[in-house]
């Protein structure tokens, strides 16, 4: 009796003997029952490892080699989920000490920062992971756009992606108020008044009396007329409950659709571009296929295994799993390194009587704040809506085929992207330089009606420039994809330049300064 008996007890002579034998076998049996299908060593057990596990079964059992190349995705989608995991864990930890009540909130953040064991470290990770998530989500969107991966049958998943982008920004924004310091208070005051800014239009039309969308939006958001205890508890509720639930629901649909829409987009000639699998890659189908393929037969749509044959696919375990784990670890490393190097800011406690000067929103909203500094409605609601609707329409307008799955694929290609970058940068810099040097309409004719400025401000002028250039590119290349490439590239340039100007070149009174050292009173 050495404890390595087979699955059935060998039948010890006595009941006590059998009992001892079973007792010895408990650890091994426990592990076996937990994993059900044994070690992932054959094609079959590699498959069952993935689809027999509730947490892994959103993954495909086998994955195309094209999807595994780093340059296909740069792992950006997985990095965004990884950030979300880190944020949930650190966020729940912070909730042990955080108290969502004005002034008390500030003190509890101070406690977390100075007293709670590892509190500062955890808060820093939460902050940096949140920032990283915004960056990664934006880069992921750019990756999907530039590889034309939004095309049929993935149109709807691109729209789900827009929902995820908005929810991610909403989570960042609601988290910004929670420390209840000056930075938070005034950023949220500005944000809440942006929600109220449709009044700029309704006032100009004289219909605010009976149609006050702006006022209603602000009231729902703050639960009051100013940022106070009601607003703080609402933002807290949004941050820790409502928006995470929405995000999880959208993510579930997003991942499910990747599977159901046939995995990641790849060019039609992916197989010939890849060449034969390298030596050392697990052999393909050493055993007869089992359950997966009977499943694949009844699933509608193009799954990797149907139509193209499984020749270029490899088992997800280990190939995809190792890649995902690597991206996950890299995300954690980045968050932790930033958390060690740079502390999350905490200014003095919120003071409703004295605004920060300059009062700046989180960095990813500073491009919008630059636009808002001309027209609250256009910069804060009008142009963001135009951008979101425009992005959402891309897959429904570009129904071409050429270039799917290839970086900068489609008519125009890389040269068009380069030219659009030059145009996009030139246009935004020219508009900004003009505004900084000469001012804008209100300065020249203070009596001009507000509607004129709402419709004609640097933000709308820039939007018109970009749209015109996009239409020109569409005509030149006789392709919707070319127009989309031009517009998206311009949008990225505008976003980056406006964000940089808002972050580094705007000082007190939102005046332009080359260096922060030139700010008066500092």
């Amino acid at each position: 009796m050495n404890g390595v008996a087979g699955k059935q007890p060998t039948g010890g002579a006595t009941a006590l003997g059998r009992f001892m034998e079973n007792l010895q076998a408990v650890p091994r049996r426990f592990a076996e029952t937990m994993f059900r299908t044994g070690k992932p060593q054959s094609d079959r057990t590699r498959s069952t490892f993935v689809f027999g596990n509730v947490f892994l079964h959103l993954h495909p059992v086998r994955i195309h080699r094209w999807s595994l190349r780093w340059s296909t995705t740069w792992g950006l989608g997985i990095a965004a989920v990884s950030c979300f995991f880190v944020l949930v864990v650190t966020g729940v930890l912070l909730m042990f000490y955080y108290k969502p009540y004005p002034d008390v909130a500030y003190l509890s953040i101070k406690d977390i920062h100075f007293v709670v064991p590892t509190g500062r470290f955890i808060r820093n990770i939460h902050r940096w992971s949140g920032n990283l998530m915004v960056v990664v989500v934006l880069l992921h969107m750019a990756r999907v756009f530039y590889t034309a991966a939004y095309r049929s049958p993935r149109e709807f998943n691109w729209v789900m992606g827009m929902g995820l982008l908005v929810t991610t920004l909403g989570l960042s924004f609601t988290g910004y108020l929670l420390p209840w310091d000056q930075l938070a208070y005034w950023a949220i005051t500005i944000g809440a008044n942006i929600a109220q800014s449709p009044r700029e239009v309704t006032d100009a039309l004289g219909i605010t009396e009976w149609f006050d969308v702006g006022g209603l939006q602000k009231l729902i958001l703050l639960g009051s007329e100013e940022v106070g205890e009601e607003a703080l508890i609402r933002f807290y509720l949004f941050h820790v409950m409502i928006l995470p639930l929405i995000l999880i629901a959208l993510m579930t649909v997003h991942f499910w659709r990747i599977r159901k829409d046939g995995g990641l987009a790849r060019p039609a000639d992916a197989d010939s571009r890849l060449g034969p699998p390298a030596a050392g890659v697990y052999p393909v189908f050493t055993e007869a296929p089992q359950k997966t393929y009977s499943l694949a037969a009844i699933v509608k749509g193009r799954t990797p295994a149907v139509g193209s044959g499984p020749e270029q696919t490899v088992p997800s375990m280990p190939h995809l799993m190792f890649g995902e784990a690597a991206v996950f670890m890299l995300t954690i490393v980045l968050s932790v390194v930033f958390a060690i190097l740079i502390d999350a800011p905490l200014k003095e406690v919120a003071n409703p009587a004295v605004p920060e000067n300059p009062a700046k929103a989180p960095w990813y909203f500073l491009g919008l704040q630059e636009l808002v500094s001309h027209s609250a409605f256009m910069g804060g609601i009008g142009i963001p809506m135009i951008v979101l609707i425009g992005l959402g329409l891309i897959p429904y307008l570009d129904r071409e085929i050429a270039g799917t799955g290839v970086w900068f694929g489609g008519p125009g290609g890389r040269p068009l992207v380069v030219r659009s970058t030059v145009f996009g940068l030139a246009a935004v810099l020219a508009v900004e330089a003009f505004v900084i040097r000469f001012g804008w309409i209100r300065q020249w004719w203070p009596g001009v009606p507000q509607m004129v400025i709402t419709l004609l401000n640097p933000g709308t002028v820039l939007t018109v420039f970009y749209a015109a250039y996009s239409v020109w590119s569409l005509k030149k290349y006789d392709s919707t994809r070319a127009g989309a490439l031009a517009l998206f590239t311009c949008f990225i340039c505008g976003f980056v330049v406006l964000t940089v100007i808002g972050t580094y070149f705007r000082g007190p009174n939102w005046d332009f300064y080359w260096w922060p050292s030139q700010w008066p009173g500092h």
Partner: protein
Amino acid sequence: MTVEARKIEAARSRLEPEAMARRDFLGLTAWWSAAVALLFGFLGAMRLPKAAVLPSPSRKFKVALPPSLAAGQAYVPTGRSVALYKEGSQVYAISTICTHLGCVVKATDSGFDCPCHGSKFGRDGSVLKGPAPKGLPWREVKHLGGDNFLVDEGKTVATGTTVSV
């Protein structure tokens, strides 16, 4: 069925469409009533977050102007967002909440400056520069006798309305 017969059949079914089966009708009614009930239930529940009583402090307050207040110099009572002026025997109040995005403007010699997005206002609250869509509103002031005044931050009066001491 011949081609002719098929044509006749098709024409008849257009003229006399088959009535919807009762089972289908009841089924659809059930689905739609469920959907409508859920929609109205949701809308009713959404009434909750729209507060009926706002926790804002009272907008009316009494204030005593310091006797030393010079003409054209702003007096901002602590914790209030209104600037009071005394010019000769006339007293008036101008809101200090920027009409752009709600920052607190600072009274200067030339008028008001907003720190957030660079709006500038004249001495009477009119917009001179920047993104503010309208001028700063004037607030209602009542004279209570002596240096005491009753200010209502919630009530806007026409620009230029003053109260005589």
